[in-house]
């Protein structure tokens, strides 16, 4: 809590990302160039853009799953360029919560155990893990589904479990990649409602989507096209 509110949760400074190794004769593809932006605590940002625009690259960089080719990426003030893989893993674990389009829950594993997973890698005791995971599942309205396996849950419920898993570590940032992409309209609306509630509780969120309607629910939109940030605007809320 001592952390200053002024330090952005995520800061990109002139970040480039290239794929392909010219030394091996491969063609170099610039997936992202000169990306500079900040995301502050409590913000709800939507990243949009057509497929192939560099959205996924940006997502991977924010998610600390990849490193920039040039430029600097800060997470809570920590520059990640010099960090080792293990330190990145630890940073992902503590600072980030992932929500995927495909849910990515462990099959044949009860909801509660799925939610506990990030805490497992923090070395937290089984009892504490259980308590925290249970609380998180209750918060997303699945308090009566702790022992259910993913196959026994609807798509919307599975995504709720995934959200609970993302939040169980109290991350600085919730990173959602097309969270409603695999859901029917009704479940999609429910999930978006949940995100909105989380936003009001002060959770910082970045949501990657190609759906403009969903993007409008965020209070800021970063539009990316051809590897460049085309627009970075506040959504006028009605």
């Amino acid at each position, binding site marked *: 809590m001592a952390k200053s509110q002024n330090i952005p949760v995520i800061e990109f400074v002139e970040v480039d990302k290239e794929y392909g190794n010219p030394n091996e004769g491969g063609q170099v593809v610039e997936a992202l160039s000169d990306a500079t932006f900040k995301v502050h605590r409590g913000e709800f940002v939507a990243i949009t853009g057509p497929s192939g625009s560099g959205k996924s690259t940006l997502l991977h960089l924010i998610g600390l799953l990849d490193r920039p080719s040039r430029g600097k990426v800060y997470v809570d003030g920590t520059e990640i360029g010099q960090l080792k893989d293990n330190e990145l*893993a630890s940073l992902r674990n503590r600072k980030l919560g992932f929500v995927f389009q495909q849910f*990515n829950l*462990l099959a044949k594993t009860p909801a509660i155990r799925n939610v506990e997973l990030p805490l497992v*890698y923090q070395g937290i005791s089984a009892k504490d893990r259980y308590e925290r995971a249970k609380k998180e599942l209750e918060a997303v309205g699945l308090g009566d589904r702790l022992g259910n396996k993913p196959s026994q849950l609807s798509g919307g419920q599975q995504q709720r479990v995934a959200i609970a898993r993302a939040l169980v570590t109290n991350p600085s940032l919730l990173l959602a990649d097309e969270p409603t992409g695999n859901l029917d309209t009704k479940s999609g609306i429910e999930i978006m409602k949940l995100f909105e509630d989380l936003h009001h509780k002060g959770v910082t969120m970045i949501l990657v989507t190609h759906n403009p309607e969903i993007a409008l629910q965020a209070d800021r939109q970063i539009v990316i096209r051809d590897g460049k940030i085309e627009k970075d605007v506040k959504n006028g809320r009605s």
Partner: protein
Amino acid sequence: MDVVELFRTATMAIRTNKTRSFLTALGIIIGVGSVILLVSIGTGLQSFVTKEFESLGSNVLYISPGRVSFTGGPPQNVEAKFDFDDVRRIGEMGSPITDASGMISRGVTVKYRNKSFYGSIAGVNEKYMDYGNVKIGKGRFFNKNAVERSQMVVVIGHKVYKELFGLGREAIGKEIDIAGIQVTVIGVLEEKGGGFGGAADDNSYVLMPVTAAMKVTGIKKPAAVMVRTESPEATALAAKKIKDYFYRKDLTDDDFTVMEPKELLSSINSFLGVITGALSGIAAISLVVGGIGIANIMFVSVTERTREIGLRKAVGATYKDILTQFLLEAILLSVLGGFIGILIGSGLSLLMKNFIETAVTPGSVMLSFGISCAVGVISGLAPALRAAKLDPIVALRWE
């Protein structure tokens, strides 16, 4: 990741695919099971041989006329180039030799009333019982007095008793006929369990004071000499003294053989050890095959669970976490197989104990356990490394 959670994750993966896990472990089960069984048979055989030899007394040496090779057995009808005087002198040599007794033997027909039996007459002295090879069942053994006076008394083997008198009949005090000479039965030997080699022959023996036997058979030279030493360790020294004695009498290695049971035993045991080792080695090939099976299924498992690995990495699993998880899974699979293999091998070994002597030693169990751990590590390493090296971005996109 704490140890409990690691084990929980690894066992869960094994439990979710029970059939596959069992089939994968089968190679290890068969390998460890057969190694355990074969080693237990080998060990049992060794301890059986050792016991047989120990019943002869480990501080006893044998002198045989002629050259005895272990492969050809004792030569028949070799007239000794030494006599009972030599035996007496050897017995009186002093430390480490305590005493020596010569014996003679020959096949004879013994008769009682209308029954006859073809057995072996063995002329021995009163110390024969001390060598511990046979036990008196009924009556008594002859004493020093009987030997000195060439008394015509005999102690008969169990089979001789059975054939001549019939079980349950009184034999002590009865006179039997050996080559036309009447001798008195004063004792009957306990029945000796059949088994290895000549042990059963003791049942066909007719034991007589050596002096009396010489008269009956006309043999003047000893057929074998048993020499006792102060301790089992002293047999080598005693053997050397005996050889020197014979060499001084201008006898050569072709004229006599000094046998140390201890030496014979160790060469038989090392031979059995080699056989056991070779058989176990062949059985261990299935361990290699089992290891390959585990590696194979672990590769399949890593591929199947690519997304899971990507997810685990995304939520904070390190290289080491993933490596340990998959390595432990392979080790558990292999150790589980090893454990079942040990149970099955020991079970079969117990079953075989009804027919031959077997012994499952803690050593072979621990060795099997260690080997199955090692097989798990070796076969799990490559798949686990592949899992740990997966790029989370690629892994999460995996279909």
